Every structure is written in structure tokens, then in C-alpha cells.
């Protein structure tokens, strides 16, 4: 077992892990942050996307030990108290989900996109979501939800 310490959603955590522990397993089973999902074995579905030092990664393809000393943001870290993040609000308002399993990953991926590109085109949104699979909605409403969030975030900034 190896000791690691990291900051998750602004809170410091310490833990002991086997080297083979994946970051997603550490978040879910050690820290009980189960909003980060596991949808596949092959790094393709994107249900486990979190931010590692501000960059979106698939937490199923990063070892927990590789996050030692790092700052991690998960879906649980987006809302401010009772106020949803505009992306969370957007997925709700635009019906961007049915079963919701892929939603945390969708939101964490597009959160990364909007940080780098606050006003993406539909094509840019779809390109940014290449690594996220949804088996319910067909993506149309997901793209609308991201567009909704982008507009919301821009008008919040201009307010």
C-alpha cells in the first residue's frame, strides 16, 4: 500500500492505495464520491471524466497514484451550495439526459471545453464530446444543454 494525498473538490484527502487502484475506484470506493461513473472497460465511454489539475481526464485510465499531490474536481464539486452550475442547469432545462448515467462525464468534458472556448459552435461541442457516449438521447439535447450553459455563463459574466 502506498500513501497518497490529494485535494478533491477543494477538500484535502489522504489515503492508502494499492498501485493498481484506478483514480475512479479511489474516488468512488475510498472517498464515496459516486457521481463519477464507470461505464466501460475500454476508456471509451467518458462516464468517468473528472478534472485533474484543471484538465479533463478519464479517471478509469489514470492511476490514483498519478493524482498524488494533485487537485481533482468531480461532478460533486461543480454546484455552489444549492446553486447548480450552468451546465447542470442546462442539462435539466434542455432535457439533456434520460437515464443520466453519462451526464456527469458529459458535464465534466464540456466544463473543460467552456473553460477554453466560452462560445463554442455546435460542431466544436460535438468534437469536444467525442469521448463521451450517451445511449439514450441521441446527443441533440446534450448539444443544446451545452449551448444553454455557454450563453448563461456569458450573460453571467456580462452582468
Amino acid at each position, binding site marked *: 500500500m502506498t500513501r497518497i494525498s490529494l485535494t478533491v473538490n477543494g477538500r484535502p484527502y489522504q489515503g492508502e492505495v494499492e498501485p493498481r487502484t*484506478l483514480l475512479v475506484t479511489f474516488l468512488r470506493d475510498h472517498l464515496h464520491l459516486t457521481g463519477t461513473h464507470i461505464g466501460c472497460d475500454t*476508456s*471509451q465511454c*467518458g462516464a468517468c471524466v473528472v478534472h485533474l489539475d484543471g484538465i479533463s481526464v478519464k479517471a478509469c*485510465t489514470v*492511476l490514483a497514484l*498519478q493524482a498524488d499531490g494533485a487537485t481533482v474536481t468531480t461532478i460533486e464539486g461543480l454546484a455552489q451550495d444549492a446553486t447548480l452550475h450552468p451546465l447542470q442547469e442546462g442539462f435539466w432545462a434542455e432535457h439533456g439526459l434520460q437515464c443520466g448515467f453519462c451526464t456527469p462525464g458529459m458535464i465534466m468534458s464540456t466544463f473543460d471545453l467552456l473553460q477554453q472556448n466560452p462560445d463554442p459552435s455546435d460542431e466544436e461541442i460535438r468534437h469536444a464530446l*467525442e*469521448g*463521451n457516449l450517451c445511449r439514450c438521447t441521441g446527443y441533440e439535447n446534450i448539444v443544446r444543454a451545452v449551448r444553454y450553459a455557454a450563453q448563461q455563463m456569458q450573460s453571467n459574466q456580462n452582468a
Partner: protein
Amino acid sequence: MIPSPFAFYAPARLDEALDLLQQYGDEAKLLAGGHSLLPTMKLRLATPAVLIDLHKIPDLVGITVDERVTIGSMTTWSALEADATLCAAVPVLAATIRLIGDRQVRNRGTLGGALAHADPAADAPALVLVLNGTLTIYGPAGIRTVAAKDFFVDLLTTALAPDEILTAITLDRVGPDEGAAYLKFAHPASRYALVGVAAFLRVEAGQITACRVAVTGAGVRAERLTIVEARLLHQPAQAEVFAAAAQGAADTLEILGDLHASEAYRRAMVEVYTRRALEAAAANLRAS
């Protein structure tokens, strides 16, 4: 889902990584971006006893744009894509990176890792072949360089010895009168290349004065299509010439067939994508 147990090292210096490699030999694997190795380990197709993570070695990360461009082996796709100077010097690199994996894969995946892994359907090997790549390798005997055309040996096998580390990749810039392109027929789910072709052309006074063409995805390794290259040299850069040169482009290659695409289909697609990549490279010619 969970890899089998292993010991984990994250050395901060290249010589420490080399010491560990020598100490553990065949039991050890180097971990770059991890987006090929870790999924393979999760499926227990690979069960290394020791992982040596290269992320903490600063010497392996960086981009230098000079007469040629040199890229540290641990530089991520995202870092390459974000470097405006590099993308201006080698526009085809930026265009190719957009086709690799997805955003999260590109945030972790590295050029060096992709080349050293040598997945037969990876995009980067074809591009590095046509950009005249030179690979810098560090090992017990010191530093050596290998030309890209000698690097890809067989399925998942490169010229790297078990105790060597790929440290940097040097590529030609795409200069005046030169153009390059990479096109792939991507598997609709995995986005891996069923067939991918990279092409580089230099065209002076309408004549092709230099060219390189390479294919990936079709066989066990990425390789140059030297017969196509020979047909193009000193010919006019025209659609009919490209089509004629691409004819039977795969005839001398060993092509794989699998449930996604038969051998005959891949052969046909090598021809189609060779022609299209040449046309795209010609369309991308830079002004003299």
C-alpha cells in the same frame, strides 16, 4: 476491470528510469500517457510486474521549433495542439491530432507513447514516417538515433530494446512548396484507423521533386509506400498522376483482414486513401 498487481515507480530523472528498467528487465513496462497500456492491463492482456511512470521527468516534455521541430516523448497531444508555433511549422500535425482518440485521450496521451507502443492502427506512425522522423533513444550505451522508417519493426514491435527509452522525436517542418496531409477511414466506434494514409509532397514548377507516402491500419505495422513514391517523383502534381500512382498501392504489402474489414476491402481502401491523401497534400501546398 482492475489490473493485476504491480509495483509502481515514478522516477524524477531519466537515468533513474533507466536504472529501474535495467533492474527489472522484461518484467517492467514504461508508462507514458497510459491510454493504450492501462486499458490493456485492465483487460489483463498485459500484466507487467513493475510500472515505471515517466510523467515526473521534466526532460521528456517540451517542443523546440528550429530548422526541424523536436518534441519531447512525453509531450501530450493537447500540448502539441496548443502550440501555435509548432502548428504553424507543421500544420499537418495539428490536423492529424484532431483525429486522434478524443479530448481526454489527447490530454493524457503522448507522441512518444504512441510511437513506442506501435499499435498497427495508430495514426501517429504514418505521419512521423512522412515527416522524415528521427527518434532519439536513451539506453545503457548512451544516446542513439533511429530513422522512423527503421523504427516500426512488426506488430507492436519497434527498434527499441527492452532497456531503452524513447526521449524525443524530431520531424521536418513543412516548408515552402511543400504540403502534407493525413486521412483515415476511422472505425466508427473506436475511431482507430481501418486504413490511414499520410502523404508529403514538394512541388516545384509543377513537378513533384520530393514525396513520401505512408500507410497505417492496414497491416501489422505502419510503413512507407515506396513504390507509390517512386511513381510520383518528377511527375506533374496532378489528379491523374495521383490516381495512377495509387493504383495497386497495397499490392506489395501484407494486409490484415478482421471482422471489421476484410483484407480485400482494406487493399481497396489503401488505394482510395492514398489517392485522396495525395490530393489533400497537393491542396495544402504552401506558397514559395
